[in-house]
């Protein structure tokens, strides 16, 4: 017998007996009795039983007699008699004697419901949640990747499944926090603290099981995934699944240049940003005590490869940071500092319109960033960066010039494109692999309405995740799945101190867009991304840091030992 039915039966019996009071001395015996039974059942269902709690039960049920009198005698009975609108003080005074009848009913009911509850407990055993045993999940959803796509999928699934104990959600991530990449350049530029842009996955997700680790293999036939174990020799952990979400993201693509990969800084993770920031400070420290102008120049030259969003934002942030801390190094001058952005095409920011790209180039150049357009990076070595049209003496090279989907995907027996991204249909399902899904930077997603490939951006990954969660939920319930369609809302790029470019798509006219630049666009950038940053606490921390930045210089404290690089 279910708990509700058991309690309702007890309430029915107790109210049925106690209702004799209403039948005998109530002014409307039948209606009162019926209402008393309904109220009694409701009370018994809502109040979990406790052994021998007679006085509590009597007092609680007796106290409920007061509002029940109001509802029954002042509202319900007059309404049944067609006099609902006539409720007044006179009615209440007339009905006052019935108040005591309802209290008497409540007291009797409280006594009887406890008596019946104790009796049922004695005969059929106690009603406990433990009797049912903890529900064991029978279906497992496994999400690989803790980026925007993976975390949003988990969040959406939590919302849709609403704590369904028969379904478990597990998320495997190499880090234990989501990296809010739009603000990564601000960490490298010492504008924000690293943890401010990384909400912990365990805090953000309510009941998803978060596993920190790297995926070593995926067995699609037997539906299991192996993640690396703790320690070098430890066996990997095996995770089984019914639905697998590939949201492994992308890694830097050095185009086969091993020397560049060895000597350049990557710019994909929080640790990369922390390293870059500390490295810049290290270069300033060394340059400050260096007397050779050539070596000083090399130390103070920072080369960023790639003129996309990541490269431009990083160059802008580094330019601001470097100039900000320059004042603390009395032996160094502004002329010695060089931030160089190398880009293989004729214009930066291909994601934005040409007009905005020109604006960005002009503004950044005015602020001291040097651009080398139509120039390819061909090699790099200690203290030297080789370009297609010459070389630069520099101790710092940061690579943002290209990415490829996670290499693990190429090892799987599924269809991928030439970059290694998983090909999915418009429902985000991997072809011919039921229960296998892919989204985000590691997937080739085709818009169901336009038929065009979706760009690998966070904006699209989040929307893909929402559709994917809906489809997985539908699959679990045997409902038809839906297709993915999303029109880009636009793009925003901050290029330096209080300066940004923004291109916002016109609603219902997707081929057109509004363009903003300068302070207004910068305000939009900060406002929009602050809203998008997950977690109120993070928002407040970032807002505080941005406010403090208006009054105090950026921090130039070194926080990590760079020898580990």
């Amino acid at each position, binding site marked *: 017998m279910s708990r509700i039915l058991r309690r309702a039966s007890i309430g029915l019996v107790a109210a049925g007996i106690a209702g004799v009071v209403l039948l005998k001395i109530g002014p409307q015996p039948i209606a009162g009795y019926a209402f008393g039974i309904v109220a009694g059942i409701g009370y018994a269902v809502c109040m979990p039983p406790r052994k021998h709690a007679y006085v*509590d039960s009597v*007092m609680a049920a*007796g106290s409920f007699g007061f509002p029940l009198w109001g509802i029954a005698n002042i509202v319900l009975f007059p309404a049944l008699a067609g006099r*609902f609108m006539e409720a*007044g003080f006179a*009615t209440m005074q007339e009905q006052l004697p019935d108040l*005591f009848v309802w209290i008497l009913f409540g007291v009797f009911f409280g006594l009887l419901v406890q008596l019946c509850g104790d009796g049922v407990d004695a005969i059929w055993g106690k009603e406990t949640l433990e009797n049912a045993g903890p529900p064991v999940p029978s279906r497992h959803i496994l999400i690989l990747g803790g980026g925007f796509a993976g975390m949003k999928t988990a969040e959406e699934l939590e919302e849709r499944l609403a704590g369904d104990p028969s379904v478990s959600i597990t998320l495997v991530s190499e880090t234990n926090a989501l990296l809010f990449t739009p603000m990564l350049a601000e960490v490298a530029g010492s504008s924000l603290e690293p943890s401010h842009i990384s909400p912990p996955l365990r805090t953000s997700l309510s009941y998803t099981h978060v596993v920190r680790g790297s995926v070593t293999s995926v067995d699609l036939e037997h539906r299991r995934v192996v993640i690396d174990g703790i320690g070098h020799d430890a066996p990997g952990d095996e995770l089984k699944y019914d639905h697998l979400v590939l949201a492994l993201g992308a890694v830097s693509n050095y185009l086969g240049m091993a020397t560049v990969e060895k000597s350049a800084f990557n710019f994909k993770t929080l640790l990369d940003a922390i390293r870059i920031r500390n490295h810049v400070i290290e270069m300033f420290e060394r340059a400050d005590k260096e007397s050779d102008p050539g070596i000083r120049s090399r130390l103070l030259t920072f080369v960023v490869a790639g003129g996309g969003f990541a490269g431009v934002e990083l160059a802008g942030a580094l330019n601001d940071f470097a100039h900000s801390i320059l004042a603390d190094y009395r032996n160094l001058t502004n002329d010695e500092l060089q931030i160089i952005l190398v880009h293989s095409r004729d214009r930066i920011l291909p994601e934005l319109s040409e007009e905005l790209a020109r604006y960005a180039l002009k503004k950044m150049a005015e602020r001291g960033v040097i651009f080398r357009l139509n120039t390819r990076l061909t090699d790099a070595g200690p203290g030297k960066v080789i370009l297609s049209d010459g070389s630069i003496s520099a101790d710092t090279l940061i690579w943002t010039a290209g990415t490829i989907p996670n290499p693990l995907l190429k090892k799987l027996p599924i269809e991928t494109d030439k970059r290694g991204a998983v090909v999915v249909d418009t429902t985000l399902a991997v072809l011919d692999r039921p229960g296998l899904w892919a989204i985000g930077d590691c997937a080739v997603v085709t818009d169901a309405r336009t038929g065009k490939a979706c760009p690998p951006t966070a904006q699209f990954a989040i929307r893909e995740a929402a559709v994917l969660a809906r489809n997985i939920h539908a699959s679990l319930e045997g409902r038809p799945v839906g297709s993915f369609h999303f029109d880009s809302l636009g793009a925003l790029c901050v290029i330096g101190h209080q300066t940004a470019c923004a291109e916002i798509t016109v609603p219902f006219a997707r081929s057109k867009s509004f363009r903003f630049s300068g302070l207004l666009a910068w305000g939009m950038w900060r406002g929009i991304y602050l809203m998008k940053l997950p977690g109120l606490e993070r928002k407040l921390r970032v807002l505080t840091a941005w406010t403090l930045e208006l009054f105090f210089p950026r921090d130039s404290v070194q926080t990590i030992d760079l020898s580990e690089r």
Partner: protein
Amino acid sequence: MNLVLGFCVGLAGGAIRSLCLHASLSDGLLIGAGFGIFFALFLVTRATSPGAGLIWGLSAAFLLWTLQQTGESFLRISAQYSLPMLHDIRQRFPELVADLICLGLPVGVLLGLRGAGRNVDISPPFRWGRAVVAGGFAGVASGLIFGYWMLAGDFFPLLAGLGDFRSQTIAVASQFGVALAIGATFGLLFQRDVHGYGSCMGWGVGYTMLCWFAGPLFLFPLLRHIPLDWSAEHASELFGALVGHILYGLILGVSYATFDRIWVRLFIQSDPLNRKPEGPGLRILRSLQWGIAAGFMGGVASSPVMVATGMIPRVHHALVEGLVLHLLVSVLIGMNFGLLFRDEASNIGVGIGWGWLFGLMWWYAGPMTLLPLLTTGEIDWRPSAAARLLPSAVGHLIYGAVTALVFLSMERRFSSRSGRVLRAWRLQTNTSNPFSPAPALWMFVLGLGILLPVLLG
């Protein structure tokens, strides 16, 4: 030992009861001894602190008085009831005062004191300084709400029954003195029962209701050396002071919880060792969010009664405008519920109990006080005003219950989704905890809160 103590205190109380009511001493002794033995036999395990004992004592005395009315009426009149019985009940009002003051109060407090000593190992530690300072601050801060009327010199709700003062300065000082005394004694009595803002508000109202009986009806006449007058007619004259006491109790409870818990918030809950999955900021926002939804649903459910009782046209003549305003206010009060009652209830039944109480309190604070204050600039706490507004109290009760039901459903849904366990208050509340005085508080506050306006109106 409890039986002996209950018997002796009850006996003494019964004697005083007879003295006050000018009734037969033997009857008084019999009633007093019976009450003391009843309490010692059935309720003493609930009297784990002086505050818990007091509430159980008062509610038991009140319940026995109500059952006495029904029993006698049932035996005498059988099926037909009308105004004569109201008259009978008004005639029995002095007995209610006597039962509360002479029996419920002393028996509850003394057996509660003994219970506190008995449970000293399992109860939270008691700190005198904290109780008096937090209670005193809360009392004075709450007393300030009457500052406007006090400065106007014509209204001192906590001093009703003390007669005229020679100067306004003495009156204001006396008012704050009484407020301080109520606040400090509240802290002493209820320190161990304070867990959340909402429940503390309930204790505050319960305690100041008792203060209305104990002050204007008992102590103040004794101080003035005038005969005690516990008639319903005299109590009607003091009805404005009752509303004042209830509002004072509302604010006292919330203020005390704030003062008492502030150091807990700042120095204990901020300790990483005590960290909860949900931080205070997010917790407040979530409570407000649920409160908005719950308040809206409560507003929808109560709107037919509000229309029927004339509350909505009273605000705006246009029905649609009135309904919109009603829903808006409902949402605001729902947010208030969310802030006060988060994690107070361990199950829906307990939640509805607090919801009834919250709805009734808002009847006193809203239509009785704030609404006339905002619309006319004056308040009207006369029994006639209460009589006019009383039918809408039913709407407020429905509002409170539905708001609590929806709020608790959302709270439970979140809890089950996140797998997070509600705070320790669930252990302190109602049926899951044998020591909780919550049902007794509902009986006392709900009962008197509804009965007194009908009886004295």
